């Protein structure tokens, strides 16, 4: 077993910022798909952020995203050996994440609510390291703009401006019950638009 006191890197230690980086943050890690990981820690550090984000975008809340991310690593790290290439390890982790997410949904709601497209995830990771951050937000802005005005307003208040149901009802001059119904209808309409604009 390799010592864990410090961060071993996939292709080498980054000397340029070593003075600030002794505690082993993952910022200096850069792995390319053809390389190998030296050990499980390198696999972990290179993938934990990405997998958490992937899970969070599929479940929308932190407790579930954390549990599912942990489950992926517990299931995957035992069988993984570092003889596999970086690209293979990443693909395997995403495939494991897909299965774990699917069984989470079936367990909790009896059906799959969201899913992970393995090929898409792996391809997008190899294409670009710095991801365009504005994309999901832009998509959401477009979706909201395509809704009838009151649907747009309730979702804007609730999801973008963190209004409580009561506050949103007051702002829109309707009862709390009405705001609740409005919110659910707006969500279903938004789901249709999301499906049309993948």
């Amino acid at each position, binding site marked *: 077993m390799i010592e864990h006191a410090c961060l071993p890197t996939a292709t080498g230690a980054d000397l340029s910022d070593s003075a600030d980086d002794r505690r082993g943050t993952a910022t200096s890690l850069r792995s390319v798909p053809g390389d190998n990981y030296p050990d499980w820690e390198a696999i972990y550090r290179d993938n934990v952020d990405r997998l958490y984000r992937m899970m969070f975008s599929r479940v929308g809340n932190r407790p579930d995203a954390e549990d599912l991310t942990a489950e992926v690593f517990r299931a995957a790290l035992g069988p993984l050996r570092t003889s596999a290439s970086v690209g293979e390890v990443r693909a395997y982790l995403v495939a494991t994440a897909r299965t774990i997410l699917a069984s989470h949904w079936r367990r909790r709601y009896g059906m799959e609510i969201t899913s992970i497209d393995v090929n898409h995830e792996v391809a997008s990771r190899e294409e670009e390291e710095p991801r365009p951050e504005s994309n999901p937000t832009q998509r959401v802005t477009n979706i909201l703009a395509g809704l009838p005005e009151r649907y747009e307003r309730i979702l804007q208040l609730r999801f973008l401006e963190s209004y409580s149901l009561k506050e949103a009802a007051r702002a829109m001059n309707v009862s709390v019950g009405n705001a*609740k119904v409005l919110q659910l209808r707006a969500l279903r309409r938004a789901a249709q638009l999301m499906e049309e604009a993948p």
Partner: protein
Amino acid sequence: MKKRRLSAFVENLLRNRRPKKFNADSDDADAMRAAIELRASQAEEASPRPEFVADLHRQLDRSLSAETAAGDQLSIRRVSRRRLLEGVGIAAAATAGVILDREVLDTGGPSASNTQQPLVPDHGTWQPVAGTSELGNGQVAPFQTGSTVGFVVNNAGTVQAVSGVCTHQGCLLRQNPTAARLECPCHRAYFSLDGKVISHELSQPPPPLPRLSVRERDGQVEVYTPPPV
């Protein structure tokens, strides 16, 4: 559609709590999917908490150490493989198969492969081989640890270590500082400082040089090598 449960689902998402279990229908699923996308696009929780990353690291470290300490690698592998095939399902099994077959079939024999392999000993320790300050950008330092010989290279701030033994017949390579390459004294084989074959005059190209794990710690460059022989 279950309005009350769906409203509770939305409320939990917005408060960053774990939504409760219920039996959803497809109308529910649509609304839930939309709520998740709206929520995820805005939330600052899109990045993992540092505490979570550190805690999970500790847990995995403990459980992997326990597995290794259990010793019987073969039984661990069998269990892992079964768990893995159950857990991942058919679509992923193809990917998993690539990794497992390579792992299970890898008997440690000489590989005819021309891909660069990492040299990761089963029982190694980190050995200091050079001072960080001695290894400026673009510089190369030979090292010898009692069990391995090699070169560490500072390539634009990233340090790499490669084996210093020619993969053809085992002669010790020497550095050619003017040509920035490693040369075999026995036959004409030349390797780049990151271990790739530049040119050779052998009937078969030799494999690239294995890479060693390397890290920087307390002003020292360290490589992960087996104990001295």
